[in-house]
């Protein structure tokens, strides 16, 4: 029961281009975010499937954040757009399943500011904490005639919910270390997919430089 109300479990799919740079910078800046947040770098937000998101909820996370590059900035031209569609579809499905659609958040931004990234996570955590209970025992959304009264049984059982061990492991405090910076360097040095054109590689350097300036 470590991950209490104030520290919801968040799974963040982070695109390895702009958003991951922001995450790296947050680390380089020594910023900290919720101990129950796990970051999964992905090649592009466009690869995150509805199934992956729903599986995360099956595994008891409270919220899923997808951090994608801002409009027009997708390295693969339209990954962020297809991600928007996936998110819309998934939210619709979540709604039907009685899972608050707010638990899935898409952030479209090419801002590589570490502070912004951490603020985003914090704000999301606050919103999730504000939702009634953990994901998976949502208070019923107001609805039509059928079943206006929530079942007594589910309320009673809600308190007795067990948390899987895996989630506990994930709940260790993450503080950014030097490692992040070194990774950033290697990324900037063009270790990314060979496909990336020189021009794009140059563009990648820019946000990193800006981050340094900021510091």
């Amino acid at each position, binding site marked *: 029961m470590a991950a209490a109300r104030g520290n919801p479990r968040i799974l963040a799919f982070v695109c390895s281009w702009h958003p991951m740079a922001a995450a790296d910078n947050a680390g380089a800046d020594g910023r900290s975010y919720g101990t129950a947040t796990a970051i999964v770098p992905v090649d592009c937000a466009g690869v995150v499937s509805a199934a992956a998101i729903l599986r995360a909820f099956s595994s008891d996370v409270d919220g899923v954040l997808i951090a994608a590059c801002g409009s027009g900035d997708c390295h693969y031209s339209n990954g962020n757009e297809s991600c928007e569609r996936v998110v819309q579809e998934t939210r619709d*499905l979540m709604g039907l399943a009685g899972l608050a659609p707010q638990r899935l958040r898409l952030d479209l931004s090419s801002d590589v500011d570490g502070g912004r990234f951490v603020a985003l996570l914090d704000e999301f955590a606050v919103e999730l904490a504000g939702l009634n209970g953990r994901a998976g025992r949502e208070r019923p959304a107001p609805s039509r005639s059928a*079943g206006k009264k929530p079942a007594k049984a589910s309320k009673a059982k809600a308190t007795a919910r067990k948390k899987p061990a895996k989630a506990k492991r994930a709940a260790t405090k993450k503080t950014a270390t030097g490692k992040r910076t070194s990774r950033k360097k290697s990324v900037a040095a063009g270790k990314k997919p060979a496909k990336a054109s020189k021009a794009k590689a140059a563009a990648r350097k820019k946000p990193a430089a800006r981050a340094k300036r900021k510091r």
Partner: protein
Amino acid sequence: MFEKAIRETKAYYCLECGICTGSCPVSRLNPQYSPRIMVERALLDDDETMLSEREVWDCLTCGTCSARCPSTVDFNEFTRAMRIGARESGFEGVDTHAGILRALMELEARRRGRRDISWVADDLRVSSRGKVLFFTGCLPYYGVVFSELGVDTVGMANSTIRLMNACGVRPVVSRDERCCGHDLYWTGDRDSFKKLARKNLKMIEESGARTVVFACPECYAMFSQIYPKFVGKIGFDMMHISEFLVSHVESGRLSFGEKESRVTYQDPCRLGRFLGVYEEPRALLGSVPGLELAEMPRVRSEALCCGSSAWVGCTRINKSIQLERLSEAADTGATTLVTSCPKCNIHLSCAAKDKDTDGGIEISFLTDVLSDALAGGTES
């Protein structure tokens, strides 16, 4: 490792007669796939190598082979046993639709939460407790996933309720409903299936329903044939919407207005070969004045499967089966192919869209056709 499955499916009775393979729609297109040879290999102890092969996932579980097998070998259950074994050995089939449907089913198995039923149309009457429950299954979800195909599964659920209302029945639509577990069952995920089954039975008990009506034959087959094997006796009546409606047509409570058209009918594997419900949907179509039913050559227990099942595998083979069925349907001269299974509707619509033929046959769901033909709105 297959001893139990061989015993339970009576595979040891196999005569190697070849009827199964000769009957199988997959084998006819894919020479690598042969139910007879799988049974033979299991009997020869070659099961371990078999588990890693993709053929384990190719079966449509359509039941054509088992219906004809002179030794009554239950090849569907045999396939399921292989899939359980494959899963345990770390092999999985290729989920269609990027796994979204499997993820949804798993979500429903694991999570608590209550479904949102705001999709029920405003003019319809449903209740939260009562004698008759309409089990909606995954229809609301499919509405989201298959909206691009133009298959309106939410509309199917609504037309079902509309028809029930027309019979004077205000069905329970429960927010505590779960997926019936059909696809998880047939793809070898025993645990999730059992969780879903238990939740559903508890939901029905709490609803006070004595009769459960299904629009989806898969849910119906699961409840009536599979649940009792795993979770014990079922204490309520079950029927397909076509069975429910037929009794009301017979009693004169339900009647339809004129609808001039020529249709053909797809017998779903579950409703047909599994449950033996062949006549009711036909009787309903027959009770619509002006509606003419033109049968395809392969009907009832010989009907060709809609080509895909349990959301595993959608290959050239599956598509070919679907196209074959569509052309059989078109050859009847019908303008509409009526199905009584939402999944047949989805699969065949998908193939029809892929093929993108002009003047192709329209695919409609039974309750949609009937609800359109309702004389004078929803009141009877």
